[in-house]
């Protein structure tokens, strides 16, 4: 019997462990069965918002090139990363690090939106309830493709989650015109279903969708003049409903760039809202660091990096009476307790440059979690109501020049600028020719939205690198002899992406 005892001992030890080796991840999210309620749709939409605030997208990689390529912002610190300098000087190769990191993040935003839209289909709730949520995903998808199509032209376009890798991996590029068609369809859906007003401006409202429609049509004006009328009509409808949509120009221009005050403003139409919190590179913005003055003691941030600094021409060509100039620029720094004018910046840090620096993202950034003002509390307005007014003016001038209505839109924006410091500049406009008005409104956009990531898109849609504007030529704010209008209005699609799917070849012209 003893033997049996040992036998059981042996068996008892030996039979432990058998498994079908299937993985059952706990605490990880499986796609199957995730979408059950509208709350789950919102959670997926929030994923898209999260991606937008990542360092790879708005935080730095996706936003900095838009600044640097324009004629308004140049490289300050000459020793900063090559991948940044190349955008300023138009020497971008298809492996440029800013592109190779922002490109995937753009598509991660889109994939998150696609996932929300696809998931919503399986949520068993009436359309008029769930579409209000899902419409945010349509907006974000349109918003992101709009950014992509303006930067890259023809692009791969996906409007549902990838389930068949082989099929999705061999698609060809979608033509620019078709991408715009899809963007418009998404924005129309968003306009139809989104509420007039959202509790916060980091969620798109009906007004956001409609304003973006106006901007999309304005941008498409370069392809067909008829689009200007559509742009005007959309913008006009927003303006007519400004009360219902709770839209207004912020009386003090400075408040738009004050993290503690902008939440109450009625001017932003859609914002990326940073709140001095985040997880790694999520929720981490770098504009205060990139644009701030090295060793400036004025903010508690410890100064910035002097990376993105306008040329002196930007500062010098801007009328000193313009209140917006004072809001947009810092031309002094505080160093060892003393105020130092920009002409004496040299020597205050090895990497500093003796030029006035951008102030919009350093002066009132609220709480910031990381050094140099990174992870700030800034709300970055993707569009402000002032732009809707200027869109209406610009578009109307293209279809019916010389209208007092168009003058009126511009003058509202100008009046707000004047009210900041009570100066006489900029004076109201009237009686301009169509061509002068066009030039004027583009100039007004340049100053009103200075350093707000808008100028580059004005340059591309109006082909301002060419005559008559020649913004990178001898009389421009930045001389960029390397600028090649056959190439540089578009970025190259990352070269490795073309290798992953050769059907996307060839790359954009000149790359």
């Amino acid at each position: 019997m003893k033997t049996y005892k040992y036998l059981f001992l042996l068996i008892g030890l030996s039979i432990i462990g058998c498994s079908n080796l299937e993985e059952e991840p706990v605490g990880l999210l499986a796609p199957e069965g995730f979408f059950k309620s509208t709350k789950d749709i919102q959670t997926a939409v929030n994923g898209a918002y999260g991606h937008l605030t990542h360092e790879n997208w708005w935080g730095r990689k996706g936003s900095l090139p838009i600044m640097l390529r324009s004629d308004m912002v140049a490289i300050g610190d000459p020793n900063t990363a090559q991948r940044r300098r190349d955008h300023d000087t138009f020497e971008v190769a298809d492996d440029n690090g800013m592109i190779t990191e922002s490109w995937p993040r753009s598509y991660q935003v889109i994939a998150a939106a696609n996932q929300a839209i696809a998931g919503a289909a399986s949520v068993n709730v009436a359309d008029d309830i769930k579409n209000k949520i899902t419409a945010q995903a349509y907006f974000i998808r349109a918003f992101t493709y709009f950014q992509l199509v303006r930067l890259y032209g023809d692009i791969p376009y996906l409007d549902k989650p990838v389930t068949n890798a082989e099929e999705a991996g061999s698609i060809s590029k979608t033509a620019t015109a078709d991408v715009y068609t899809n963007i418009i369809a998404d924005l129309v859906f968003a306009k139809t279903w989104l509420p007039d007003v959202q509790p916060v401006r980091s969620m798109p409202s009906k007004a956001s969708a409609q304003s973006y429609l106006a901007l999309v049509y304005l941008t498409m004006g370069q392809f067909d003049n008829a689009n200007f009328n559509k742009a005007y009509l959309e913008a006009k409808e927003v303006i007519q409903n400004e009360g219902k949509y709770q839209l207004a120009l912020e009386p003090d221009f400075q408040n738009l760039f004050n993290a503690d005050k902008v939440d109450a403003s009625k001017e932003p139409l859609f914002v990326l809202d940073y709140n001095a919190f985040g997880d790694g590179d999520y929720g981490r913005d770098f504009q205060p660091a990139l644009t701030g003055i090295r060793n400036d003691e004025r903010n508690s941030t410890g100064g910035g990096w002097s990376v993105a600094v306008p040329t002196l021409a930007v500062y010098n060509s801007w009328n000193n009476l313009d209140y917006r100039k004072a809001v947009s620029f810092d031309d002094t720094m505080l160093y060892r307790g003393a105020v130092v004018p920009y002409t004496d910046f040299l020597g205050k840090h090895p990497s500093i440059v003796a030029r006035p620096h951008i102030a919009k993202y350093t002066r009132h950034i609220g709480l910031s979690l990381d050094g140099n003002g990174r992870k700030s509390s800034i709300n970055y307005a993707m569009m402000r109501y002032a732009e809707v007014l200027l869109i209406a003016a610009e578009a109307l001038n293209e279809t019916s020049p010389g209208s007092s209505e168009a003058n009126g839109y511009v003058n509202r924006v100008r009046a707000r600028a004047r009210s900041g410091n009570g100066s006489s500049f900029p004076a109201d406009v009237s009686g301009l020719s169509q061509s002068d008005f066009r030039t004027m409104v583009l100039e007004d956009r340049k100053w009103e939205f200075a350093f707000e990531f808008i100028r580059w898109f004005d340059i591309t849609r109006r082909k301002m690198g060419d005559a008559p504007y020649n913004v990178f030529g001898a009389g421009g704010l930045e001389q960029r002899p390397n600028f090649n209008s056959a190439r540089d209005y578009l970025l190259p699609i990352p070269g490795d992406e073309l290798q992953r799917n050769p059907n996307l070849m060839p790359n954009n012209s000149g790359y």
Partner: protein
Amino acid sequence: MSQNNSIKKISTCLFLLASLFAFSQQKVTGKVTDGNSKFGLPTVTIQVKGTSNGTTSDFDGNYTITVSNADAILVFSYLGYASQEVKINKRSIINISLAENENLLNEIVVVGYGSVKKSDITGAVSSVKSEELNAFPVLDAAQALQGRAAGVSVQSNNGGEPGTPISVKIRGNTSIGASSSALIVVDGFVGANMPQANDIESLEVLKDASATAIYGSRGSNGVILVTTKKGKKGRLSVELNSTYSAQTTSERLDLLNADQFGDYQTAINPAYVRGTANTDWQDLIYKTGSTANHQLSFSGGTDKVNFYASGTYFDQDGVVLNSGFNRTSFLSNIDAQITDKLKLGFNAFGSRSEKQGISTQADTGGRGSGDVVSIAFRFSPDLGLFNANGSNSVDFLRDGIDNPVAVAKESIDETKTDNYRANFYANYDLLENLTFKTTFGFSTINETRGTYKPSTLELTAGQQGGIGAIANARMTNVLSENYLTYTKDLDKSKLTLLAGYSYQKNTTERSSAGAQGFTSDSFSYYNLGGGATPLPPASSLTETEILSQFGRLNYDYNDKYLLTLTARRDGASNFAANEKYAFFPSGAFGWKVSNEEFIKNIEQISNLKLRVSYGVTGNPSISPYQSLASFNNIYAAVGGQTVNAVVPNQSANPTLKWESSYQSNFGIDLGLFNSKISLSLDYYNIDTKDVILGDTGQPEYFGFLNNQSLKNIGEINNKGLEISLSTKNISTDNFSWKTDFNWSKNRNKMVTLIGGEDVFLNAAPGHFLRDETHLLREGEAVGVFWGYDYQGVYQGGALPTGTGTLTANAAPGDELFTDIDGDGKITSSDDRKIIGDPNQDWTMGITNTFTYKNIDLNIFFQGAYGGDIMSLTHLELANGNSNSTTEVLNAWTPSNTNTNVPSAKVRANDISSRFVYDGSYIRLKNIALGYTLPSDITKKLGMDNVRLSVSGQNLLTFTDYPGLDPEVSYKASGSQNSNVNQGFDYGNYPNIQSVSFSLNLKF
């Protein structure tokens, strides 16, 4: 577990046991003693030749064995003693004395799931003995492997940091995306942590596929088999090992003093305002460290039971301020012969350690970050410790860094680890020649890491008001293994069969939390609730399982021809549904030429054996859940409020499977002049296929968060030669001298990459702002350096043909680089090339041991030739943003043109061959002088053995490398590309030099 399965298993066992009671029996008893001391020898293996019928001697050396054939031969074998074969000749009492092993060939070598005589080994196996492991004090026994076994490379993950993990690589890098570290098996427990060096009886390194295939999917990185000490029969033996070491950094960088620094900065920036202090920051962060290691062990046993128990206390006070490590551990091995047939054993290990860490090997050294070591190099020497108001000084030369002394002293980084392992086994002789062994083991590691950065570090945490965090991890590992061993002696041959199955499950739970904005720094990390802002918490659970069947056949014909066939079928949960199982076969053939008649007459040749093997092994070391489609949580805020957010993480990957290594090995073992000279040569070729790489073949426009899902694409080849030579140069009564030499060469090559495309990798810390430091390219070695090719200093005038400078308006004194594409400009896209290979051409170790009467001297040199080092430290110290090395004193000036150092104004930022150095070195790793008290004195003192020794480690190093130490390790572990980040030097904890005193007492 399904009931069906259980029933199946039980019935299988019953079937195997069925014929248990069906044979006739005869008892043989006796006593085994030591040939010298005449003490009884415990745990001697007594086996009936050609069968698996065996037993072991008890505490006093007594044994009883039941045999079925009265003419059988008994084989007595014992580790460290020469085996003896004795014919029973119908005797019932056989007493025998065993002689300590003179001939290494009769040593028993542990192999997976068994052991064989060294002379019968067909694969490539290196043994490292206890005395080699304990020749000098080490934190981790793996450290002691360096230079001891050919083909084995040992990498500290962070220089000489107290408590840093040590990784061991065997025969080169066989992987990129999966681990390349060898599998460690301790007393049969797969994947255990290395025990204390003093507790190790022997350590076997299994290198070729024939030896490792029994570990199947986990064998391709090689296997280290560790056997801990067991109790020996005889009276209670008590042993005390005490070591005390004093330690210093092995080297310091020559940096500028305050005056020189002021001149240097003024050259860059004429407006530079000099500070008033003159501080040597290296001097302030380094100190003399110490190590104390005390081990007390007890061993012995009674008739049926023997035991070994030890306790060890290790305490290291690091050579950098505020760094240290201490560990208390115990080990206990108990074996009990319950009946003639049944033997049970229990093995328990436990340790508790505390690591006081400091920041080293920084990922980024931008504002307020950076590790203590590299910021001590960078920090301006003209600044003092404190500002006028008493706060810690801060250097604002570039991004702003807190001073290294404050960072070292005031930040808290504590890791507390409990590590327990228990392993139980039962061994049952089912038949005369059939044994069943079952083991069940469990281990758990519980770790808590607490960090706190106080608000007094202005840039690190001043603005945040202090940052605290706690991370917890609990890792458990359950292992069940069961196997049958069958031995059969045929006419002229001997057959051993092994078959078994095993199941292993690893579970890891993690959680972390943090906060910032504390009212007081005195909370440390113990009051996270007291922080104004919580940081995002995290938790996770991962589980992996491996289920295996394995078998081995050993066939020995006439003691001349040896055949080993091994196979293992593994199933691993981490792989895709259809790729969970794989089969790993191997075969080896050995020919003992020296046992052939035509050689036997040649007196000079005492041993000659040829070995050839081929086999397949795998590598499953990837994270779980990589093959499943998943969503992931990310951080998002709406209207300033953090919200739940999910995004698509990865697509399903239905084809993810093992990396497989196809390895062939050719070996020769030669013994000359009665084994006075023994030589082993091994040549190997390893083709690793289906290498797991982050797949860059999936378009990024798919939009998955993880757009580098793992795929089996790529092939790596390693081939190499290993030589081990042992010579007994002089052997007289009073004096002996022997030499152990090993040399190995490995050549590694990237054979295939996805689409033949180069893969660029980045090891530079974030603030370097450089994207590409090294690469994988087909036809090149793994991880070659990538950058500009430095051509010296531009002297003005026309640029030398084929060169250029980074700036359009070159000034005399600038860096000149090769203009590869000849366009007159140096551009990152066209003018970079491979500028170095971190893979060493060869490595060697040579140990000379001299004994004269009771004095012994051990001299151990270790070296490596041909590995390049990319010093990110030197690059950073040449960029003008910090202090610099004294090299800059020889910078180009109009009056000092004959120099290779550019003008002090040049701010070097780019990866170039200027900072690639030859990392060849030879170092006196250890020199030890020992004295053993003569035995008559020892006896008078009532002791068995008293030994004193003094030793020195890393006392001499011969190298041209200008950095601190040629054994560099930046990002060689933990990070994403740790396998292929070799040869980078930046911010390591410094390697140490030490002088040690040891005492060994045996009662």
